[in-house]
């Protein structure tokens, strides 16, 4: 009977300890690595649009196909900045303008690692010793429409996240989460513009 009580007390103490450790969360670090698959694209890599027009940018970030308002609000200004800096348009806005084309960009975050949450939870339970790595996939669908003509393109990207004691992918540089996400989103926006330009969408 005493043994059972001690065991219960021990289990309770252990649970509280794990609970407390997880609540601190700062003790287990997460690092992100951006997949090198997409080339770096800048304004100099884009053709000069022969007749630039104003454009309305429609952007939506989705998580597993469902609209993600928080991420949309956070990423939309970056997409608009990329469109503005590209020099492909005379004016860039997220509201309708007379004679404007419509640039539509949807980025869908599709987790490529099964049970990512459970893996992270397991890492937390072992105080980060049993590290884990998860991969987030991003499918970017972009289109440009004007005068009844639409040009479309699709591209894919990935971010790898290590939690706790786990090595990152070889040859990739570890980044802070915010920097990694910003870099990946910017790369997708610029590459989408490049691919649309290569398809003569803005001619």
């Amino acid at each position, binding site marked *: 009977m005493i043994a059972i009580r001690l065991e219960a007390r021990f289990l309770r103490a252990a649970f509280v300890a794990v*609970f407390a450790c997880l609540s601190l969360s700062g003790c287990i670090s997460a690092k992100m690595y951006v997949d090198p698959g997409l080339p770096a694209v800048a304004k100099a890599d884009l053709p000069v649009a022969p007749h630039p027009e104003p454009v309305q940018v*429609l952007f939506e970030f989705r998580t597993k196909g*469902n*609209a993600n*308002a928080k991420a949309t609000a956070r990423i939309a200004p970056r997409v608009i900045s990329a469109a503005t800096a590209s020099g492909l348009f005379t004016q860039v806005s997220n*509201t*309708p303008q007379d004679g404007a084309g*419509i640039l*539509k960009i949807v980025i869908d975050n599709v987790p490529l690692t099964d049970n990512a949450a459970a893996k992270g939870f397991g890492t937390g339970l072992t105080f980060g010793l049993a590290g884990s790595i998860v991969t987030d996939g991003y499918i970017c669908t972009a289109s440009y429409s004007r005068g*009844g003509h639409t040009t479309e393109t699709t591209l894919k990207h990935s971010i790898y996240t290590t939690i706790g004691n786990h090595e990152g992918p070889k040859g990739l540089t570890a980044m802070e989460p915010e920097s990694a996400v910003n870099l990946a989103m910017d790369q997708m926006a610029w590459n989408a513009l490049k691919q649309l330009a290569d398809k003569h969408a803005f001619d």
Partner: protein
Amino acid sequence: MLGGCVSQPAMTYQASIDNTEVLLAHPTGKLSVGHVDAAAGVANAHLSVRGSELTGGSDGTFAGYLHDALTTELKAAGRFDASSATRIDATLTHNELDGGAVKNAKAVLAARFVVSKDGKTAYDKVLTASHQWESSFIGAVAIPAAFQNYPAAMQKLVAKLFNDPEFIRAAGMGPATTAAR
């Protein structure tokens, strides 16, 4: 601890691309948004998910969130005019956020939408939208997922309105065209 028992306001409503495209496809007609409230007994101030609470939008109510949704969508498509004689009023008749399930969570929203032109009712219909997403046994995953998906459910409710041909006719938005798409 573990991010449980929190109370947070619904994310600022963002226009849905699908809704914007539907509205852009109809070249004419501008609307104002009038009074939006909640029916008696409908959760209008907060929704509970595993002990945590989601609160309403800019005015602290979900009726206000529906008002924001209608205004935001119409503005994104250039179809909003605060002085338009064609007006949308609405009453939130159902507001359910069920994030308690281990596997599949859901939100069910319904509202009565009334469109009036110069004070005359041109459209009066109750519309319902259901939205599902993958949940988790881990509260720290399930609760944010539920809060994140509420705006998507609201987008679907508004989409029901904008995709209703009777609404398009009542709002005087003209026949669809692909020119703007």
